[in-house]
């Protein structure tokens, strides 16, 4: 079913969405979305939601199951503490994406902003995955505790850096795959780099394959460049800091 969101306040809109899900709808399209916040927050039902337009902040926060596709840019706070499900953004995204994400997938076709993937965590079989097709700002993967973070740098200007500074600062779990070379001086002190292994290649294959099919990016183009793997040098990076 389709809901016209034009001029609808977020509270009404989200109520309509929840009512539709409760009534058994499995495929919901929201048209003319502009700035409505909290869409799909806390939703657990395994439904498909399509958003046409630019949704407001905290999209898919605490989401736990649905597949959400956005045709347009998104703002800040997407997939905040998301537990399960998939979010596909066919556009650019703002800051603080996937904060505290514990599971599920967040695929962004374009560029992402600052503080993406902060404190992503893994728990037992829950592994959150965030893939950004373009560039990122400072603090990419800050405080990472688990999960998989990928940055592809597609479509950027010649010579433009793929990410900002303080990459992985405070990293103590999880793994990052960055397409191309990574300047270690832009990474936190806790980060180490490694060559990709066969295991890593399999991981890339699995998730990038899905990413490309969801966003229309070109897998061959992506795989022409070697990836760098970033990992945390310690799970206790601040052991020597304190005087006991």
């Amino acid at each position: 079913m389709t809901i016209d969101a034009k001029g609808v306040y977020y509270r009404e809109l989200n109520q309509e969405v929840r009512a539709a899900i409760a009534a058994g709808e499995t495929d919901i399209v929201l048209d003319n979305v502009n700035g409505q916040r909290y869409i799909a927050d806390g939703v657990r039902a395994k439904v498909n939601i399509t958003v046409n337009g630019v949704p407001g902040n905290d999209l898919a926060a605490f989401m736990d199951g649905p597949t959400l596709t956005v045709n347009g840019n998104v703002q800040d706070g997407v997939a905040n503490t998301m537990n399960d499900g998939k979010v596909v953004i066919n556009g650019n995204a703002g800051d603080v994406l996937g904060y505290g994400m514990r599971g599920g997938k967040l695929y962004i076709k374009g560029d992402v902003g600052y503080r993406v993937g902060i404190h992503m965590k893994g728990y037992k079989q829950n592994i959150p995955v965030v893939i950004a097709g373009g560039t990122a700002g400072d603090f990419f993967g800050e405080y990472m505790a688990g999960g998989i973070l990928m940055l592809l740098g597609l479509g950027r200007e010649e010579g433009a850096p793929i990410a900002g500074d303080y990459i992985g600062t405070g990293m103590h779990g999880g793994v990052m795959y960055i397409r191309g070379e990574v300047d270690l001086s832009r990474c936190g002190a806790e980060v180490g780099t490694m060559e990709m292994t066969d295991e890593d290649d399999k991981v890339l294959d699995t998730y990038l394959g899905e990413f490309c099919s969801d966003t229309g990016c070109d897998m061959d183009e992506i795989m022409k460049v070697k990836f760098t793997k970033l990992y945390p040098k310690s799970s206790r990076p601040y052991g020597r800091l304190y005087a006991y």
Partner: protein
Amino acid sequence: MDHWWQKDMSGCGLSGLINTDGARVSGAVIRKSIALMHDRGNGQGGGLAAYGIYPDHKDYYAFHIMYTEEPGKPARDLELAQKETEAYLDKNLAVKLGEDIPVKITDKVRSHPILRRYFVKVRPDKLAAQGFGMSEDDFIVSTVMHINDKIDGAFVFSSGKNMGAFKGVGFPEDIADFYMLENYQGYIWTAHNRFPTNTQGWWGGAHPFTLLDWSIVHNGEISSYGINRRYLEMFGYKMALHTDTEVVTYIFDLLVRRHGLPVQAALQVAAAPFWKDVDRMPPEEKEACEALRMVYGSALLNGPFAILFGHTHGLIGINDRIKLRPFVAATKGKTVYMASEESAIREIEPDLEKVWAPRAGHPVMVELDKGVA
């Protein structure tokens, strides 16, 4: 030395547009944009600034003055304040016109301070009497500081030429309706939605904060306020409006107008590059950046911020160095938009050419085409 003030912090949503070709649009446009971000504020403060709105008086400084109670101070006779202020203006300036600012009471904004505007010029005899090479702008600044500091209950909230600030207690869209901004035409508009926690009900605390033709709307909190304020007091600025954003306006007046720094350098003082980046610069640039920081360290703005500066010749937007507040810019034709949220821009222009998130600490500076102002 007064250490006993209280200050409030500034939330929470802002939007701005500039038509570089000088095409004037009504306040209804920016109203629509800021209204979309209704939830960023709490209804306790809203305001807008506009440039190009007084073409008939464009060589006159347009003083917008509110006569109102001040938080934490005893009640005063506001008509007396008005009388005293007008006498002061008549004595020291050439007043072409003094009138009430037209307003419309609505169920959203039911009561308001006395709101007046005056179109004034500096009198050559009064300026000469100051002796030592004071400029007209200096004279106006000193007049504004005097009224704000010394006349109880009177607050100048706008003092530039061919521009004005309109602000009060209420959501910005309601404030825009209250001042009937749909009837004004301007080529630069900024708007702000506030979420104050300390000083509810204080009309003077809403944004924008202005001095001469600088107007500032700000999202964030200035954690360096304590020292920014004391630094500015050394140069005669009075923080009369109980809100941290006030210092931003005066820092720019000091650095750009009085010290002659290029605007871009002044922006670099406010959002200074980190030492780790300065250390990597080529020696001449490094020396200059170090010097700016050494001399103007007390003017560094710390804390999260996104700020829009309007001035006679353009609009500037800037973020703090680690991008702790949202900030989006966009273009369509001759218009440049800047706002806290992309959707606020799309609400008034769905079909944008370019949309981007400016880099932390790197300003977006847009100038009006030559000859516009």
